[in-house]
């Protein structure tokens, strides 16, 4: 260039050329990044469409009754999803009943009572637990947990409750360490660190000055958590629970190892059962024809189930935020 360009000389052809080139680059950048975002959209549509197309023969054959039919006859090709749905919901419910209070307790301990020098190592340990592959939970459940569970929980509890009318029936069944309850407990071990770590993060975000104000008014730690930390962190806590629930519903390997894999409706919580994911893991590789279409239908139902859970969590958060009148605190 011959003459140096002055800052105010915006009409200079060289400056205009740069501006034009940059505008082009920006437009290109916008389009490219948008294309990748749309790609993700297409992937989800593709997943749903593929699952539905492959599941369609099963839905056409069995109709809506597929969802509440309790039959799994591979030879005669009579299938129903009820047992798998019950197994999935029951194990996830047990995992949540055990896991949510424990996760909440751990988060509480890590943010409120734990000495400061211990917080980091303990928090890291919880996160380490979250990084253990789920198949290790399954192997641990089958080889280590199940025998101990049978000897030290199922048999004593059954002896204790043998005479009682309702609880005795609930805890009945062959005490071999495998079944719905064992799978639920292993699942709770598995989802516990996720929920604990996220809840801890959410609690930590609460401004310290809010806590100190409440303590200054004479509140106990419990009251501070109940009336200050929880309302502030509610959205995140719901998110943490939903993350755990989503994991529990979709978990495959850990459940398959310990659920017992019997296609029948579990009469007691110690009875072996089957979940959607364990049916898929066990049978998919050997399936063909209607059997395979049915397994695709099970996968489709699982997808819908997790989707509904996510949508409900969104609705719950929206509802609570509306009740507060404003989003700011």
């Amino acid at each position, binding site marked *: 260039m011959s003459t140096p360009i002055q800052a105010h000389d915006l009409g200079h052809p060289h400056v205009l050329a740069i501006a034009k080139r*940059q*505008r082009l*680059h*920006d437009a290109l*950048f*916008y389009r490219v*990044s*948008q294309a*990748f*975002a*749309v790609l*993700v*959209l297409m*992937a989800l549509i593709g*997943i749903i469409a593929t*699952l539905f197309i492959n599941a369609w023969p099963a839905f056409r054959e069995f109709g809506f009754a597929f969802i509440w039919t309790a039959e799994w006859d591979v030879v005669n090709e009579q299938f129903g999803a009820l047992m798998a749905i019950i197994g999935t919901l029951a194990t996830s419910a047990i995992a949540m009943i055990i896991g949510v209070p*424990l*996760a909440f*307790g*751990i988060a*509480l*301990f890590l943010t*409120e009572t*734990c000495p400061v020098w211990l917080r980091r190592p*303990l928090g890291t*340990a919880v*996160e*380490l*637990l979250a990084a253990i*592959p*789920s*198949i290790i*939970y399954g192997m641990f459940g089958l080889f*280590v947990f199940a025998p101990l569970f049978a000897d030290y929980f199922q048999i004593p509890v059954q002896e204790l409750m043998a005479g009682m009318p309702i609880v005795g029936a609930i805890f009945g069944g062959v005490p071999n360490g495998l079944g719905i309850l064992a799978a639920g407990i292993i699942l709770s*071990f598995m989802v*516990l660190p*996720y929920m*604990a*770590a996220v809840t801890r993060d959410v609690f930590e975000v609460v401004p310290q000055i809010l806590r100190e104000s409440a303590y200054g008014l004479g509140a*106990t*730690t*419990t009251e501070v958590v109940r009336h200050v930390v929880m309302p502030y962190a509610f959205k995140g806590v719901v998110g943490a629970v939903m993350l755990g629930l*989503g994991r529990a*519903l*979709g*978990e*495959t390997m850990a459940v398959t190892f310990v659920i017992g894999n019997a296609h029948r409706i579990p009469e007691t919580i110690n009875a072996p059962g089957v979940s959607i*994911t364990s049916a*898929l*893991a066990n049978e*998919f*590789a050997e399936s063909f024809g209607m059997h395979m279409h049915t*397994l*695709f239908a099970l996968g489709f139902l*699982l*997808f819908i189930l*997790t*989707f509904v*859970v*996510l949508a409900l969590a969104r609705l719950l958060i929206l509802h609570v935020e509306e009740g507060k009148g404003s989003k700011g605190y």
Partner: protein
Amino acid sequence: MQINQSLYNQRRRKNAAIMAFSGVASVIGLAVLVWILFVLFSNGFYALDWEIFTQDTPAPGTPGGGLRNAIVGSLIMVGCAVLISTPIGVLAGIYLAEFGDANKTASVTRFVNEVMLSAPSVVLGLFVFAVVVMTMGNFSGYAGMIALSLIAIPVVIKTTENMMRMIPGSLREAAFALGAPHWKVATMVVMTPACCWRWRASAARPRHCSLPRSTTSSSPSTWTARWPTCRSGSTTWP
């Protein structure tokens, strides 16, 4: 000063009970961790030797042998999955963070990403089976790679967007004021510190990082690639 002694004692008891519960919960959580790690090491340690890494898995019933095929297969598959998922995830994340305010496409994509994030890995495995394995006619490393990428992409998108949104707006505005085009602001001003943060965050918190999640997902890869059980790995591997 007068205090209601019974109410005060009641509050203190309740507090003590709940604090004790939270302590017990932490002990249980850590005990489970220690137990699992102890079982893993005590059973797995004596089985570890060089042959695990240097020899292939033999036919069932034959003594000796190692897991070389499975280890190499996992590494290749995870490496390729990272190569596929990182550009897609990072670019889509940039779109959401930079152009995603009050934008219909972006809000739909964000919701879709949430759905993908919570989608069970089995379902993704089913999809890849239907699309890749059924059309190609056999299990392959490609299918495993695609399944793992599908798991990793939503995680990468979400982390990228969150990290880019943490960069202060003043930094961005300063760059714009100097006349930097948007793509330079996004890639050089916003991404660079975001990358550092992201790396630190993922090093400190494994669950933010997509890598552990994709390396440890066993269900989609066992069907789509059949690597762990596949002795003739080289025939299915391209």
